[in-house]
């Protein structure tokens, strides 16, 4: 019964049930069930997520949905929006768990760039030309970015979650995104100044269709 319940409410009925001075407990319970089922599908192939994790995620997700319900724009089903919010909550928690308490300083990235490139291009002349593009991007990272921009770019490449990266750089997620965006614009210009474009770098690693 509960299953049809959750998806047959209209947006207006959801909002009415969740937005009164006191949310109606039925609506809250249905939302929690709905989110838990959605998150169970999201994490179906993950052995590191058990039923009690799903309960925790769903509970936190309900609170987040209630907190930001005013930013629901009404341009989708309410349940789709709520699920997107729930997924953000759960994924953020999972990323934090996976990342642990490593800091930016702990990032140890293997220096196997040249061997990767060699494998992709056996011809020494091609290797040199291709290495130049990689070298150009490295040089741009080293020379064209502010220390904070460099930390964001390298931290993100190393898989450091946004929340942890923001915390370590004493900033927030929005400012972090702006730093990353500005860094990308600078790197793109930096590559161009050095006579390369993004596809030159990608071709080194994945090969180009012209090879």
């Amino acid at each position, binding site marked *: 019964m509960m299953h049809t319940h959750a998806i047959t409410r209209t947006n207006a009925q959801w909002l009415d049930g969740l937005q009164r001075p006191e949310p109606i407990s039925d609506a809250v319970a249905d939302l929690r069930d709905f989110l838990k089922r959605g998150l169970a599908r999201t994490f179906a192939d993950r052995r590191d997520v058990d039923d009690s994790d799903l309960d925790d995620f769903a509970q936190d997700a309900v609170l987040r949905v209630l907190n930001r319900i005013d930013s629901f724009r009404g341009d989708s089903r309410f349940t789709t929006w709520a699920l997107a919010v729930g997924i953000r909550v759960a*994924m953020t928690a999972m990323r934090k768990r996976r990342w642990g308490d490593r800091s930016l300083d702990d990032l140890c990235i293997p220096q196997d760039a040249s061997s990767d490139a060699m494998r992709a291009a056996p011809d020494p002349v091609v290797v040199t030309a291709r290495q130049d593009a990689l070298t150009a*991007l490295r040089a741009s990272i080293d020379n064209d970015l502010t220390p904070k921009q460099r930390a964001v770019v390298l931290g993100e*490449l190393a898989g450091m979650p946004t929340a942890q990266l923001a915390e370590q750089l004493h900033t927030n997620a929005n400012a972090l995104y702006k730093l990353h965006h500005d860094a990308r614009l600078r790197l793109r210009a930096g590559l161009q100044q050095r006579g390369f474009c993004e596809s030159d770098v990608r071709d080194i*690693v994945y090969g180009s269709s012209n090879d």
Partner: protein
Amino acid sequence: MEPTAAQLAELARQLAGTAPNEIDCEAVLDCVAAYFEATQSGITPSADLAMVGQHLEVCPSCLEEFQALVRASAGE
């Protein structure tokens, strides 16, 4: 911290998708549901929603969450 060639290639992919104006992850959260429903029903997203698609090109976290939304909605 020295990035690998594969990481640099991923960065290059993001550079190629970078736009002068982008929306951030918070803004994406508010319109990703509408973007998802538009793409599911084969409707070309409005200019507003197209910025979500652009963001997914450059933000691995939001892309991961979008793919999760696709999976979560599949059995609904």
